[in-house]
């Protein structure tokens, strides 16, 4: 069955430190992959997406993600986090069989001053 796993429920990072949020997926076909961010009390905002081509994808707010087919992973990275990056991050994979997204459970990012 198709699934998306975000192994870390919470991650705490110091301001200015680098960040990597993990996402693993299980999907038979070539995946369309997404990262969304949700600030407290807000809706979800698209950070970046991978459909094809270059496996390193650049997004908004200085984020990037790398698709690794051999590891079924799509990890999100940022070289230096800011306090405003504190939010919940969701990974998702698109299923073209029924035009739906399969969602990970989310990772809450906490920034230490």
């Amino acid at each position, binding site marked *: 069955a198709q699934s998306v796993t975000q192994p870390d429920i919470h991650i705490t990072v110091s301001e200015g430190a680098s960040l990597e949020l993990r996402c693993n997926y299980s999907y038979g076909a070539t995946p369309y992959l997404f990262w969304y961010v949700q600030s407290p009390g807000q809706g979800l905002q698209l950070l970046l997406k991978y459909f094809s081509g270059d496996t390193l994808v650049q997004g908004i707010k200085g984020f990037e993600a790398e698709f690794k087919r051999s590891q079924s992973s799509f990890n999100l990275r940022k070289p230096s986090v800011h306090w405003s990056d504190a939010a919940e991050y*969701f990974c998702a994979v698109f299923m073209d069989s029924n035009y739906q*997204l399969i*969602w990970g459970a989310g990772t809450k990012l906490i920034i230490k001053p």
Partner: protein
Amino acid sequence: DAGITQSPRHKVTETGTPVTLRCHQTENHRYMYWYRQDPGHGLRLIHYSYGVKDTDKGEVSDGYSVSRSKTEDFLLTLESATSSQTSVYFCAIGGDQETQYFGPGTRLLVL
């Protein structure tokens, strides 16, 4: 930002009453979705629509119905609200390259 609005943004209701949430888009997208978000469960799909009058069930459709009589509007109805339906409800539209764009959400409290 994609043109998606949700109304109401907040609602308090009593158990057993019907509730309708509205999602309105100005993007003319074919696909629209209703999700609920609860702590520990992430986002769960309730219903979705792939065109006017064309809808289908998602993962957690029991107790919910939807209607789409116009491209721009997708209504979610709780037939008889229960406390387990207290949640934050998000509408999304399916844009280019299968990307979904989300509305601001509706916080529903069922007493």
